[in-house]
C-alpha cells in the first residue's frame, strides 16, 4: 500500500505540474470577441421651426447639434450653439442617434416606444433665464409629458446669451409620477449655448 501511495504521490504531482505548464487554458483570451454592443447616444439634435404670429410654421428653421462619435471618453464631444429671435415662438423636436452603428440607429424611436419610462426636461440657464420657456406638447399613455415634441417661447427684449439645459430622465416603470420630478438616472444631460438676438 505504502509504495503504491508513494508512487502515486509523485506521479500525481508531476502530472499536476505538467498540466499547468502544458495545457492551454480552456478559454482563449487571444480573441476578445466583437460583441461590444453598448448602446450609445452619439448625436443629439434639436430642430426648431419658427412660428408666425398666428402660430403656423414658417420656412425658417434652426437646429443645434451635440456630437460625440466615439462615445464616452476619448475625443471630447462637440456642442453647437443656437441663435433664436427675441419675441418669437418655435416648435421643436429632438432626435437621438447612435452613429456607432451602420446605418445609424435612431434612439428617438426607442424613447418613444418606452415613453412611460422617460421624460425630457428643458431648462433655461444663465442669461436665458426668464427669456426662454419650453412647453412640452406630447404625452405618454398615462397622459404625462414626454418631451420629444415641444414649443419654445422667446420673450421680447435686449440681446442675451445663456444656456438651454436638456436632460433625459430614465424612470423605473412606477416612478414617473408627476411630470416634474427628475429621476436619479440621466441618460442625457447637455448644455447648449443659446443666443437671443433681435
Amino acid at each position, binding site marked *: *500500500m*505504502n509504495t503504491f*501511495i*508513494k508512487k*502515486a*504521490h509523485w506521479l*500525481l*504531482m508531476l502530472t*499536476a*505540474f505538467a*498540466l*499547468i*505548464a502544458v*495545457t492551454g*487554458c*480552456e*478559454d482563449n*483570451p*487571444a*480573441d*476578445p*470577441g*466583437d*460583441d*461590444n*454592443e*453598448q*448602446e*450609445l447616444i*452619439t448625436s*443629439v439634435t434639436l430642430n426648431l421651426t419658427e412660428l408666425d404670429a398666428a402660430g403656423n410654421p414658417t420656412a425658417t428653421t434652426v437646429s443645434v447639434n*451635440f456630437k*460625440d462619435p466615439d*462615445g*464616452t*471618453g476619448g475625443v*471630447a*464631444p462637440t*456642442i453647437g450653439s443656437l441663435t433664436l429671435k427675441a419675441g418669437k415662438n418655435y416648435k421643436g423636436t429632438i432626435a437621438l442617434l447612435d452613429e456607432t452603428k451602420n446605418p445609424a440607429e435612431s*434612439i428617438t424611436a*426607442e*424613447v418613444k416606444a*418606452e415613453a*412611460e*419610462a*422617460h421624460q425630457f426636461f428643458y431648462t433655461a440657464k444663465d442669461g436665458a433665464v426668464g427669456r426662454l420657456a419650453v412647453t412640452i406638447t406630447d404625452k405618454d399613455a398615462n397622459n404625462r409629458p414626454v418631451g420629444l415634441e415641444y414649443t419654445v417661447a422667446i420673450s421680447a427684449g435686449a440681446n442675451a446669451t445663456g444656456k438651454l439645459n436638456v436632460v433625459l430622465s*430614465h*424612470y*423605473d*416603470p412606477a*416612478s414617473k409620477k408627476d411630470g416634474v420630478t*427628475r*429621476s*436619479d*438616472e*440621466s*441618460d*442625457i*444631460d*447637455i448644455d447648449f449655448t443659446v443666443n437671443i438676438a433681435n
Partner: protein
Amino acid sequence: MSQVKFIFGVCCIMLAVLIGGAAAEQSDRKIRIYGSVFDKENKTPLLGANIFILELKRGNVTDEKGNFSIANLAAGRYTLVCRLLGYEEIRRAVVIAEMNIKQDFYLKANPIELGAVKVDAEKDQQNLTEASQSLEILTQAELQKHRGQTLGETLKEIPGVTVLQTGPAIAKPVIRGLHSQRILVLNAGVSQEGQQWGGEHAPEIDPFSPARIEVLKGAAGVQYGSGAIGGVIRIEPRALRALPGFGGELSLNAFSNNLQGAGSLLLEGGSAKLPGLGWRVQGSLRRAGDAKTPDYHVLNSGFDERDWSVATGYNTDRRGIELYYSHFGTKLGIFRGSHIGNVTDLLRAIEREQPSSISGFSYDINAPKQNIAHNLLSLKTRAELGNLGRLEMQYGWQKNHRQEFDAHAPFSSQPPAFPTFDLVLTTYTADVTFQHQPVKNFFGKVGVSGMRQGNVLETSRSLLIPNFRAYSGGVFAIESWVTGPWTLDFGGRYDYRWFKTFRRLDEKVVEQIHDYSNVTGVVGLIYQFAPQWSIGANLGSAWRPPSLNELYSDGVHHGTAQFESGDLNLRRERSFNIDLTLRQSSERSRAEISVYNNRMRGFIFLFPDPEPTLTVRGAFPTFRYQQAEARLRGFDGAVEYQLSDLLQLGAAVAVVRGDNLDTNEPLFQMPADRLRLSTHWHLPDWGRLANTFIELNGALVKRQTRFPQNADYAEPPPGYSLLDINFGTEFKFGGQPLRFNLSVQNVTNKTYRDYLSRFRYFTDDPGRNVVMRLQIPFGS
C-alpha cells in the same frame, strides 16, 4: 516563447530547491519533551491523556501518575496538543533548541462532550514567539459567533481590520487601510484569484467553511508573493478526520433584519480499514431579503448564496495527500438607488435624507445584480524526507465567473437581457515548499511557485478590463534562528510576472505585453524578555504589479459617477513596512499591541483631474490612476483581562493615518479611528445549561476628519456608537449536545452611515438585527 522560458525557469528552480534540500545537514535528534497532565480543579494527575506534536503527528499517552515523554526530537518549533475526553483541549506552541523541556498541562473539565468541536482553549495559550509580525487568529469558537455572516463581517472582530461595504452582501476586508489587490487571501492554501478590481467585488469565500482564520497584518511578500502588501488572510477549512468513525455538524441561523436564513451541514468520516484515510463533505445556504435600516428597507439588497465542498485525503507519519474541491455561488442584488446617471443625479441623491425608491420587504433579487461563481480544486501532498525535512507540493485550479447586470436594458424599462460584464478568470497555481530539518538552531524553508492565468470577457458592453493571459513565478527562502529567548527571522524572494492583453480597437486585435519583476525581503526579531512577555520587530517589504483596471480602465463608474482613466505606464507599487508588536499572555490576561509604519513607493490611487469628462450624460469628474509616495501608519491592538472566574473585560483599538506624501494630503477612504469595549460574563452551570455566557460589546467609531479635498461629493458621515449583546449556552436534548446562541446587533436601532460604506451617499446602514444560531455536532 515566453512560455518556454517560464517553464524552463520553473524547472531550474525546482531542481535547485531539491539539490539545496539534499545538502542540508543532518541534525542530532536527542531532545525530549516531558511533563505531567493534571485536572485543573483538584490537581490530580490524569491517566490516558493524549499528548501529541501536531507537526510530526506523533505523541504519547500519560501514565497513572499523569506523566508523559516524547523523545528523539529534533530542534524545532512545534505545537503540542493535549487532549482527554471530558476535558478541554489545550494547544501550546513550544520551541526546542538545545535542551530537554518540561511541559505541564492543567486540563479544565468540560461538562458536555461536544464531539470534535473545540472550546476556545487555543487562545489561552497564545504563542508569544509565533510571529515577529502582527498576527491575529480567529479560532473555531470565535468563528461560531459569526456563522452566517460574510467573511468581511467576521473579520471585523480583529483590531485593524475593517470592511469596505457595498450593501449587506458585499463586504471587502480592509487591513490597516488597504484592500483589494493589496490583500492576499489564501483559501485552503491556494491564493484566491477572483476578480478583485472594484470595491464591489467581495472575496468568494463560503463563510461557513473556515475552521480557523489567520490574519497577518502588514507586508508579507516573502512567503506569499506579490500582492501581500497590506496583509494576508489565511483561511483553513476543518482538518480531515484522522481517526476512524463518522461525524458531522449541522448549523442553523436566522437573522431578523433581512429575514435571512442560513444553514450548513458538514459530514466527515475516517476509515477503519485504512487508518489515515478521511473524507469530508460540506454544503451551505444563505438566503436573505432586503436589509432594513431603522426607517426603511434597502430596495433590492437581498442575496442567495449556495456553496459546497468535498475533501478527501490519506495521511500517515511519512506522507500525505489531500484533494479538495469547493464551489461558491451567489446571486446578489445591488441597491437600486445606487444606479445613477451623473453627478447632478448623485448630488440630488446625497441631499435627500432617504432614497427615492423605497418599497416594502422582499426576497426578490432584481437588476442591478451580480451572479458570481468560484470553483477551486486543490491537490496537496506532503512527504517526510527523513533527515532532510519535509516536502510539500500544492496544485490549484480556480475558475471565477462574474456577471454584473445593469439596472435595465439601455433606454428601456425592461431588465437587461445580457450582463454588462461577463468575465471568466481561470487560474492554475503550483507551489512547492521544502522545510529542512533544523540545522543547529536554524529552521526554515525554501519554496518555488508558479501561476498561469487567463481572463476572458464573454460579453462586455463596457470596457473595464481587457482579455489577458498571465504567467508568474517566484522563488523564496526564509530562515529562523532560535536561541534562548531570541528568535531571528530573515528571508528573501524573487518574483516575475508577465502578461499580455488583447483588446479590440477599430476592428483589430491589439496585443500588449507587460512584465514586472522584483525582489523582496524580510527581517524579524522576537525577544521573549519575560516568561509572559515578548516583543517582536518586523521589517518587511512587498510589491505588486499594477492591476488590469489600473492600467486599462476607461469609462464611467456607476454609483460613484466618476470617469476613471487608467494609465498604461504605471510602474510597480512597493511597500516597506516596519511593525513593532508587544505581546503578553498569562492565565488571566492577554494582550497584543502593534505600531506600524508602512511606506509605499508608487502607491497607485485615483487622482482627481481638474478637467471634467464631457459626455452626452453630462460632465463627469475625471479621476486618473496615478502613483505617489504614500505612508500608512498607526497602531492597533487588543487587551483582555479576566477580573474573576466569571468576568472578563476587553478592549480593542485601531488607528490608521494614511497620507499622500507628494501632495501632503490624507489618502481617500481610510478607516476612521475605532475602539471596541467588551465584557464577557461566564455564568455558572444552571440545570442542563453549561458554558453559558453573556457578552456586552460596544463599538465607538469616530468621524473621519482626514480626507483629501475635491475628491469626494459628501463629507464623511458623523461618528457613531453601536451596542451588541450576545448570549450563548450549551445543553443536551435527548442525549444530543446542542449549542445555542442569541445575539442582538445594533441593540438601540441606531441610524448611522459608515465612512467605508460605499452606499453612504444613498442609504443608512442596517438597523437592529436579532440573530439566532443553533449548532448540532453529532457522531463519534
